[in-house]
């Protein structure tokens, strides 16, 4: 991560120092520098600090015992069952939300890529979930939908069972029965519109004349979808999956609000938040953060390769 920045900033003209050339290079660089320097200071310095603290014995409850701890914090993180669970939860949560919302988004984008009465209205309705503030959305799901006594889901069950004359409708406690799925569903609801919007934009960029030609040649809808639409959509699917993963891996709001990290839903951001904010164990929180960053760098290297292939068509000038 840092190496990229160093290369760019430390870069000097490789040819013999021609003053004029150097001046023009700096003139080109000047507009970039404020943003670049700001980002390096605000994102790279804290990481260095985290790295240093991760090797320290530092708990805010015991300020006198601060000192060098060697690899103790890392050993504690690696042997901590909660951390291992958190890694697993993070993977399940991210993969579940991204895959389900991508598939739903694809289906809905295909539905909306047709001409029908009220298409604009349906599109607007579809966007609404994404525009509700995440904490507010999580609160609505927790209290107004999932609540076993007066939530809309159980209310609807009572109503439907009532239609058939039954007084004993099932009234499941959604969050206690399936905590992780409760979080996943609320996030799928928020992120499907995002996937749908990107895929719809992709569908509308299809070369329609070629598709029409294939149709005239006798290709059926499924064949057209398999061999023309899907390959065209591939880069949009990748883009949606990548951006969705970046945001959902970091999710804190839904886990914090719906389950408060209980019932096996504590993901990595929530677990680190807890070690730092509730246990005040700065050393251990930092070690966990360092491990997460290293893991992210490994995954991000592959992800960045995908993005660079996505954007390489518009090469520089």
């Amino acid at each position, binding site marked *: *991560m840092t190496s*990229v920045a160093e290369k*760019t900033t430390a*870069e000097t003209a490789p040819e013999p120092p021609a003053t004029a050339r150097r001046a023009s*290079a700096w003139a080109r660089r000047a*507009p*970039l520098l404020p*943003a670049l320097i*700001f*980002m390096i200071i605000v994102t790279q310095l*804290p990481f260095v*600090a985290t790295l240093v603290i991760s090797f320290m014995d530092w708990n805010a409850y015991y300020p006198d015992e601060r000192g060098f701890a060697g690899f103790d914090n890392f050993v504690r993180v690696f042997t901590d069952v909660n951390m291992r669970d958190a890694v697993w939860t993070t993977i399940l949560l991210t993969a579940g939300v991204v895959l389900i919302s991508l598939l739903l988004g694809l289906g809905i984008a295909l*539905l909306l890529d047709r001409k029908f*009465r*009220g*298409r604009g*209205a*349906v*599109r607007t*309705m*579809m*966007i*609404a979930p994404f*525009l*509700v*503030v995440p*904490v*507010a959305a999580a*609160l*609505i799901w927790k*209290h*107004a*939908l999932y609540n076993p006594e*007066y939530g*809309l889901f159980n209310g*609807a069950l009572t109503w439907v069972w009532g239609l058939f004359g039954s007084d004993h409708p099932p009234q499941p406690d959604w969050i206690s029965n399936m905590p992780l799925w409760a979080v996943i569903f609320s996030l799928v609801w928020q992120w499907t519109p*995002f996937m749908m919007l990107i895929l*719809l*934009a992709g569908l*509308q*960029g299809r070369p*329609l004349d070629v598709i029409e030609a294939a149709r005239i040649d006798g290709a059926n809808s499924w064949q057209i979808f398999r061999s023309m639409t899907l390959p065209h959509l591939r880069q949009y699917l990748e*883009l949606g999956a990548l951006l969705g993963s970046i945001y959902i891996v*970091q999710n804190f*709001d839904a886990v*914090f609000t719906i389950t*408060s990290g209980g019932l096996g839903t504590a993901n990595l*951001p929530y677990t*680190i938040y807890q070690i*730092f904010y509730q246990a005040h164990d700065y050393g251990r929180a930092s070690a966990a*953060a360092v491990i997460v*960053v290293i893991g992210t760098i490994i995954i*991000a290297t592959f992800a*960045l390769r995908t*993005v*660079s292939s*996505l954007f390489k*068509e*518009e090469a520089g*000038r």
Partner: protein
Amino acid sequence: MSSSITDTAPVPATRDDAGRPVKKRKEGANVWLSLLAWVVGLLFVLPVVWMVLTSLHSEADAATNPPAVFAPLTLDGYREFFSGGASPWPPLLNSLTASVVSTIIVLLLSLPAAYALSIKPVRKWTDTLFFFLSTKMLPVVAGLLPLYLFAQYTGLLDNIWLLILFYTSMNLPIAVWMMRSFLSEVPVEMLEAAQMDGANLVKTLRSVIAPVVTPGIAATALICFIFSWNELLFARVLTATVAETAPVFLTSFVTSQGLFLAQLCAAAFVVSLPVLTAGFAAQDKLVQGLSLGSVK
């Protein structure tokens, strides 16, 4: 991504006529598919509608099972939210300050940077661009503790400027990517022509670049505003009573007991209203922004 993508983002209702071949076959199946689209759309908007409806019910009607859909409407939930306990106005104003100020700073920093990455690119501009994106992939929680300790030592805890600083760094990479993508749309020929005519930098910026880029600036601002307004984790850790933002204020409802559902729905709706309004008003900008400008 490439020029094959429609240059104006889909505007509902009007864009169907844009050369789309009319399909005559399978009328029956089409009706069912349209119906399905409506059902799915209604299902997705249902929780939002339910939130608004519940916010307009009395607390007793909000907590019934089966739901009292046609209960009389009242503004009690909103009255209770605005004047019941702690006032929501300071948090709302804090959120507004943090979002607007950080968005302005982001635009001021990202525009020149994007210029240096597209119109007159520095060497290794791709590396720089990917450095910006890579910071977005770092888990923010890794920077939480150092920022907290920094704030503690400098006395900036519970200060809105610390949040502004963090939101700027959170959105700057997105903005640089988006602005670069929009600036790349400026045709080289026009830049060259302007230079031939002896136009200076300011004139080129004003007459050639600005018209192409202005919609892009709007999209960038919208996205930065939404992300800052929504942010919870850092606001929760770095602020207390003074600089508390609207999402933090909402977390007081997490463990609520008793009759509070109407008030909760009113609160959720009020806090979401700025984002809902801005997002609906600029639907096409939303797509551009969320895809980092790669979908035009």
